[in-house]
């Protein structure tokens, strides 16, 4: 169709034309400006908004599809690629673990509604034996696994070969050790890829599917769904002969023979563990208390106090410096008598030192000792009378207190630095 129309508006990418039959048409821009001119144009020049819209829709669809594909690759495919083995746990409820080459759970799926009760998020990243026992313990907690319903079916399908996924024994052992239920029938089935694929189609574990196959051999009337919905214990009752052939006999015997000793051991272990636990607890509590104390002491100190102490400290230091000067002169005049007294004093001061050593950092100790000795000396030098020694002691005490406080200040500062 050929149109004739007047260009009535020009934009960057299109022009608008008023045609002879009074239609306003948006058409493609070509070449230089033709505003106000009557032009001849064709259908193909018209910008049809519907095509734009379809294009948009198509683009969005494409985007969704591609993102979905990428998501599929990221979450589905990569998961599939990393799955070395699939471990199914049926009590009914049923759950399924996908594990990688290290035996670490990468994905947990609940195969039925109840299965969701057994799934913990923390299972992902756990070793498979831990995850299985956690699932079983959850089942016990939720009363799925009881004395009536006492059969656990575990199935394993190795999709790829790896040395680290021969998990059968470790799983069985860990179930024995860590679950509380006795007299549990444990069935362990190692299945193959074909069965797993079939099972996956029916949303059941490979173990259940294996059982279905076995049951179906004897009984044609059995449907997959009935097996899927049946509790493992019920299957065990109805088809005892099949289950008994598959039972983990070791597990049963061990459990029964080891029952008493095992229990004792368990208790011992438990008690050991408890002791350790308690010790740890005590330690922790003690630590906590210390921490609390420190905190309180730190908190009790106001900034004013600290400043005050700082100034005091300075004063003391100045005094000490003066004393040192004097002391150098007087040292030479010291008599032996004085030495005796000095020794006495030292004995006293050692006590303080010991006390201080406990509080102080090792690095500080040497310097402090030096100071203290000097102080002692100069005390003795300046005051000959023994009567005044008491006062000296008191002075020393005060100083010590101050030192202690200084130390605490240091500790406080250290803590803050930490």
């Amino acid at each position, binding site marked *: 169709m050929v149109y004739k129309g007047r260009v009535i508006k020009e934009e960057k990418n299109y022009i*608008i034309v008023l*045609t002879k039959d009074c239609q306003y048409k*948006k058409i493609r821009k070509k070449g230089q400006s033709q505003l106000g001119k009557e032009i001849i144009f064709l259908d193909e020049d018209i910008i049809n908004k519907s095509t734009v819209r379809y294009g948009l829709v198509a683009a969005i669809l494409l985007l969704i599809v591609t993102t979905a594909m990428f998501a599929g690759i990221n979450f589905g495919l990569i998961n599939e690629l990393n799955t070395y083995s699939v471990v199914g746990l049926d009590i009914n409820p049923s759950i399924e673990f996908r594990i990688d080459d290290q035996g670490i759970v990468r994905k947990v799926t609940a195969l039925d509604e109840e299965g969701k009760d057994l799934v913990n998020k923390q299972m992902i990243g756990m070793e498979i034996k831990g995850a299985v026992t956690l699932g079983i313990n959850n089942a016990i907690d939720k009363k799925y696994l009881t004395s009536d319903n006492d059969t656990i079916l575990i199935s394993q399908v190795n999709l790829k070969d790896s040395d680290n996924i021969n998990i059968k024994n470790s799983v069985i052992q860990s179930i024995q050790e860590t679950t509380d239920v006795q007299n549990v029938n444990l069935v362990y089935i190692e299945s193959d890829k074909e069965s797993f694929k079939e099972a996956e189609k029916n949303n059941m574990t490979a173990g259940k599917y294996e059982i279905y196959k076995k049951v179906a051999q004897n009984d044609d009337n059995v449907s997959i769904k009935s097996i899927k919905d049946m509790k493992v214990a019920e299957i065990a009752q109805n088809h005892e002969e099949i289950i008994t052939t598959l039972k983990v006999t070791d597990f049963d015997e061990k459990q029964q023979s080891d029952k008493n000793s095992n229990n004792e051991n368990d208790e011992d272990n438990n008690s050991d563990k408890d002791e350790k636990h308690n010790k740890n607890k005590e330690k922790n509590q003690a630590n906590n208390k210390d921490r609390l104390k420190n905190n309180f002491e730190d908190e009790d100190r106001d900034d004013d106090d600290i400043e005050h102490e700082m100034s005091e400290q300075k004063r003391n230091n100045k005094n000490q410096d003066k004393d040192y000067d004097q002391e150098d002169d007087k040292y030479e005049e010291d008599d032996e008598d004085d030495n005796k007294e000095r020794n006495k004093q030292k004995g006293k001061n050692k006590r303080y030192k010991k006390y201080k050593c406990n509080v102080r950092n090792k690095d500080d100790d040497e310097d402090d000792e030096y100071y203290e000795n000097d102080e002692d000396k100069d005390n003795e030098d300046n005051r000959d009378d023994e009567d005044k020694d008491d006062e000296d002691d008191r002075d020393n005490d005060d100083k010590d207190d101050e030192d202690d406080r200084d130390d605490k200040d240091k500790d406080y500062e250290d803590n803050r630095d930490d």
Partner: protein
Amino acid sequence: MAKILNLFKNKKQTLDERLKNIQDGDIEEREQFISEYTPFIIKTITEVINRYIETENDDEYSIGLQAFDEAITKYDSNKGKFLSFAKLLIRNRIIDFLRKETPSKSNIYFEDTQDADEYISLSNREDDFTESYSIRKELEQFQRELKLFDILIDDLVKESPKHIDSRINAVKIARHIVENKKIKQQLYDKKKMPVKKITSSIDVSNKVLKRNRKFIIASVLILDGNSEFLKNYVFGVEGR
């Protein structure tokens, strides 16, 4: 029966057979063939000149038609396909024409001032320019008036009635508004369509008025305005 058979035949005729008939002297068929292929001719010309063909200055179009006609006469089926041959011929003729035209139209040589004066006086460019200038002014005026009603020309593209009958009806309403001073005044004053007055004086439904509001207002502005060339496009629908 023979006619039907003939029609059937015609449809089945290949391009080469038709061309042979035309070359043998079937003038009716020739005209029919050319009108069938006008979009092709227009497309080829547009491609060469890289802008739309302007009807006021349709030398290019007639040259294209002539070239196509020439192609029909000169075509030799042994030398390739007709359409590519026709395309080539049209392109060559148009390019030849443009080469002849351009110096006098757009190139002015300042080296020789006397010649330049001649060129300018020879070209009819000036008239063309003043005309297009006034048209542009009128278009700007039209857009400004539309803006008062909060309408963009882009809106008209989307919201104009698609079917020719509904367009005719809408223009009829517009004409009614223009001729009825009271309604027109109210429309200009309130910048809104006085729906009640219109429905009471002319047989239209609210729905039609509402749906084609923008198109009707634009038509009113054109019909009531002083842009003769825009009016022509509305008259085209009215059949005047």
